[in-house]
């Protein structure tokens, strides 16, 4: 990232001056033209006021420097989702500058405005419009300055590629750099300036190369683990064999004799540190420790029954009509239960952090989706004010929701304090699996019915432990209720044996798998083609259009399932984005192997800022989604995690690759929506439905492993 260029900006004394005004703040940013703006509502400003020492009437800013370069400051981070490119595109578009002259300064708590974190596909829809408005405002300021400078009325001026010129006489011009030179101008954006219409776009919506690509193909890109400070020690930490285990006895004498090793102990927190990470690892292996493991009989097979037993009372998320009425008009009633296992985030970069403490200040580099929460938690654990902690976020090697938890950074801070040296903590793969906040195991129970005419008459839905998001069904069903018990993050004690949390498109993978399977079951019983059955129950034009687009690309021809063709369909909504997916599978009924041959995904995410980027995200979602659909499942015995590396925990591979086709549908002027998550949500349902279409075997549990396929074939 471009943070380096800003390191010399002396922002440190900011922290002690709560009274700093905007003008002073602009000076500290290095002058030029700075536009302040506010994202979100006043609660965001309030949260920020507690975090930071600078003026509290804005929480984002954009600067045009004296060199004519544009800097966008954002607390968001880049972890592969491509916002480093799409945000820069938005600023470049509204400012009429080339994409190359925009710098993104991201995830640095000292330079960037407070931000809750990068998750939930919110960067584009929430941050995007305000950033565009600020850029438009900046352009208006530049044009104003140019009227003075060139002595030409505004109406005759035009801005292009960082230059303002006279429309009648092009050589009569002035560059943004010249206009910003020697100026300290601050503007607060109160009214939203007019944004460009879609038809005026020259940067937004045009395919561009990723801005981080060159660094990433040459090995130059810095991730947290690549940071090595003078005198830094690499730490390895003694871990329990199971969650809930307690240390009984420990002998570190064998580890201590390794040359250069430092052993640190604070109660049960024991670490070995060395200037080389592999030496620290060697020392860790020499520690002899005994643990007490509490009795806990729940495992990956019994977990579902256990969860149903401890489920908290449900809340109604949605309701309409009367289930009783619906039941009366039903000629068939379907009562099904859907399960999904715990799934790991498993980014290839494990949780990593480097902490350096100097006096009462700390600098932290962390692979995190939430730099500002790292800042406050480390401040708390070190007992220093938040503003004394600077968190810098280098490139993040994948997050998917898992890097919203930052235990590794707290560990590094603790060790930096105990040793008085800079410390790097980089988790091993086993630690990454052990301390992951898994996508929760979950259960969905659905009762539904159809009439003689093949119309869905009622829908009684209850989801346990996955979460509420998109649990409300969107088909036209006269009588329906949706109940939600438990959540993905705040699990009731005694429910999950380890931590759970948000996993790419939290709750929605589970809810979509269950809903779309149940819809297909009813379609099949009614003897109606599953696409037609869906269309029959959909009045939402956006979804109908999208299904048509997917069907056209796929070459869908109507047939009731199972047709033997192995075709599946699923559709979903995800926070404003619509997704329709069709797939073709081959099922080997002997060995249970499922090969997904083709996937067509149509997505309506409003205006796509960077269509190529959006397609990449869709492909990523489809490929990643094959994993939770087919193989990914955490095995465990009580608090003991049994899958600790990629041998038993199976990620999607090249040989699984289906042919992938994506269709982007833009309905009218729906503003841009996030695209990092939506397309993954259909993968469980679409493959389950395709397997049924191929074999007549209905699978109710994710992942659909070869064992479960064989078992299904046997049951049939």
């Amino acid at each position, binding site marked *: 990232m471009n943070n380096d260029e800003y390191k010399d900006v002396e922002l440190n004394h900011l922290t002690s001056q709560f009274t700093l005004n905007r003008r002073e703040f602009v000076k500290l940013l290095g002058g030029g033209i700075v536009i302040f703006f506010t994202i979100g509502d006043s609660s965001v400003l309030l949260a920020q006021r507690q975090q930071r020492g600078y003026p509290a009437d804005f929480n984002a800013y954009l600067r045009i420097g004296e060199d004519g370069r544009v800097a966008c400051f954002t607390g968001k981070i880049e*972890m*592969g*989702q*491509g916002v480093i490119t799409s945000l820069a595109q938005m600023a470049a578009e509204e400012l009429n500058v080339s994409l190359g002259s925009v710098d993104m300064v991201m995830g640095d708590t000292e330079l960037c405005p407070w931000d809750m974190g990068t998750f939930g596909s919110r960067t584009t829809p929430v941050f995007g419009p305000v950033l565009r408005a600020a850029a438009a405002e900046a352009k208006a300021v530049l044009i104003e300055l140019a009227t003075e400078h060139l002595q030409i009325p505004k109406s005759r001026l035009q801005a292009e590629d960082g230059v303002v010129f006279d429309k009648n006489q092009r050589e009569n011009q002035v560059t943004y750099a010249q206009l910003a030179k020697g100026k300290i101008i601050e503007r607060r954006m109160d009214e939203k300036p007019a944004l460009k219409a879609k038809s005026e776009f020259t940067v937004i919506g045009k395919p561009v*190369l*990723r801005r*981080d*690509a*060159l*660094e*990433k*193909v*040459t*090995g*130059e*890109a*810095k*991730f947290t*683990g*690549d940071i*090595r400070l003078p005198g830094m020690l690499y730490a390895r930490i003694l871990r329990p064999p199971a969650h809930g285990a307690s240390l009984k006895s420990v002998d570190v004498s064998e580890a201590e004799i390794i040359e250069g090793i430092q052993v640190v102990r604070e109660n049960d927190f024991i670490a070995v540190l060395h*200037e*080389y*990470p*592999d*030496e620290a690892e060697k020392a860790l292996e020499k520690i002899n420790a005994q643990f007490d493991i509490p009795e806990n009989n729940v495992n990956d097979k019994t977990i579902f029954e256990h969860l149903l037993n401890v489920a908290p009372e449900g809340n109604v998320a949605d309701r309409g009509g009367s289930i009783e009425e619906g039941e009366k008009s039903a000629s068939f009633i379907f009562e099904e239960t859907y399960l999904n296992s715990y799934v790991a985030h*498993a*980014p*290839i*970069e*494990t949780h990593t952090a480097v902490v350096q403490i100097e006096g009462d200040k700390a600098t932290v580099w962390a692979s995190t989706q939430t730099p500002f929460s790292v800042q406050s938690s480390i401040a708390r654990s070190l007992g220093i004010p938040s503003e004394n902690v600077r968190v810098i976020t280098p*490139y*993040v*090697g*994948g997050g*998917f929701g898992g890097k919203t938890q930052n235990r590794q950074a707290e560990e590094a801070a603790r060790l930096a304090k105990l040793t008085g040296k800079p410390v790097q903590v*980089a988790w*091993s*793969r086993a630690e990454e699996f052990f301390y992951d906040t898994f996508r929760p195991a979950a259960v969905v129970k659905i009762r539904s019915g159809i009439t003689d005419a093949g119309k869905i008459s009622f829908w009684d839905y209850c989801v346990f432990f996955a979460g509420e998001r998109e649990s409300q069904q969107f088909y036209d069903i006269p009588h329906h209720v949706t109940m939600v018990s438990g959540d993905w993050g705040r699990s009731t004690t005694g429910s999950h044996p380890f931590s759970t949390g948000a996993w790419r498109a939290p709750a929605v993978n589970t809810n979509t798998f269950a809903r779309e399977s149940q819809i297909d079951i009813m379609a099949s019983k009614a003897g109606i083609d599953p696409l037609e059955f869906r269309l029959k129950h959909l009045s939402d034009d956006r979804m109908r259009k999208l299904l048509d687009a997917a069907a056209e690309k796929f070459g869908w021809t109507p047939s009731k399932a199972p047709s033997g063709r192995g075709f599946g369909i699923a559709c979903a909504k995800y926070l404003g984005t619509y997704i329709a997916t069709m797939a073709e599978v081959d099922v080997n009924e002997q060995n249970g192997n499922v090969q997904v041959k083709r996937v067509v995904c149509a997505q309506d995410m409003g205006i796509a800022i960077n269509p*190529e*980027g959006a397609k*990449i*995200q869709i*492909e*990523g*979602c*489809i*490929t*990643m989604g094959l994993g939770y659909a087919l193989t990914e499942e955490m095995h465990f015995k009580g608090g003991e995690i049994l899958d600790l*590396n*990629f*041998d038993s925990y199976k*990620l*999607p*591979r*090249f*040989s699984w*690759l289906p042919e*992938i086709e994506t269709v982007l549908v833009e309905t009218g002027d729906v503003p841009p929506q996030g695209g990092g998550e939506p397309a993954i949500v259909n993968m469980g349902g679409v493959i389950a439905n395709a397997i049924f279409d191929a074999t007549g075997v209905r699978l109710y549990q994710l992942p659909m492993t070869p064992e479960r396929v064989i078992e299904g074939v046997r049951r049939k």
Partner: protein
Amino acid sequence: MKETINFILNGKPISLDVDGERMLLWVLRTDLGLTGTKFGCGQYLCGACTVIVDKRAVRSCGYPVRNVEGREVITIEGLAGNGELHPLQKAFMEHDALQCGFCTPGMILNAYSLLLRNPHPSREEIISSMDNNLCRCGAHNRIVQAIQTASE
């Protein structure tokens, strides 16, 4: 036990005093400051740590540095020659064959060794020789396309 190990690293002869049993990955990343080679699993399971030793892809997380004595090692930092990106690097950029980019160095070097053995692989050959390199972001499709382009 320290020993002197001589080898060619990215085209330049070097001599290291190092415990020969240490794994190449950590010697590259720390002693030599070449952090483009990544740690992903430590057990030959992901390929993030792939480097080239005498034209073959090896997984440096399990490869003792002693074994490079007298050999030629290429890491991602050494793939571009004379300021010119390697065709694979260009193709990865053109095809957007990366997202978070953490698996990328290993992917490119594994593909590099494939192209040395087989300059014009079929799609199937690409897939089978890349199959043990993991990418969590799901950039697979583009990676295959990039390798195809680079081999043309």
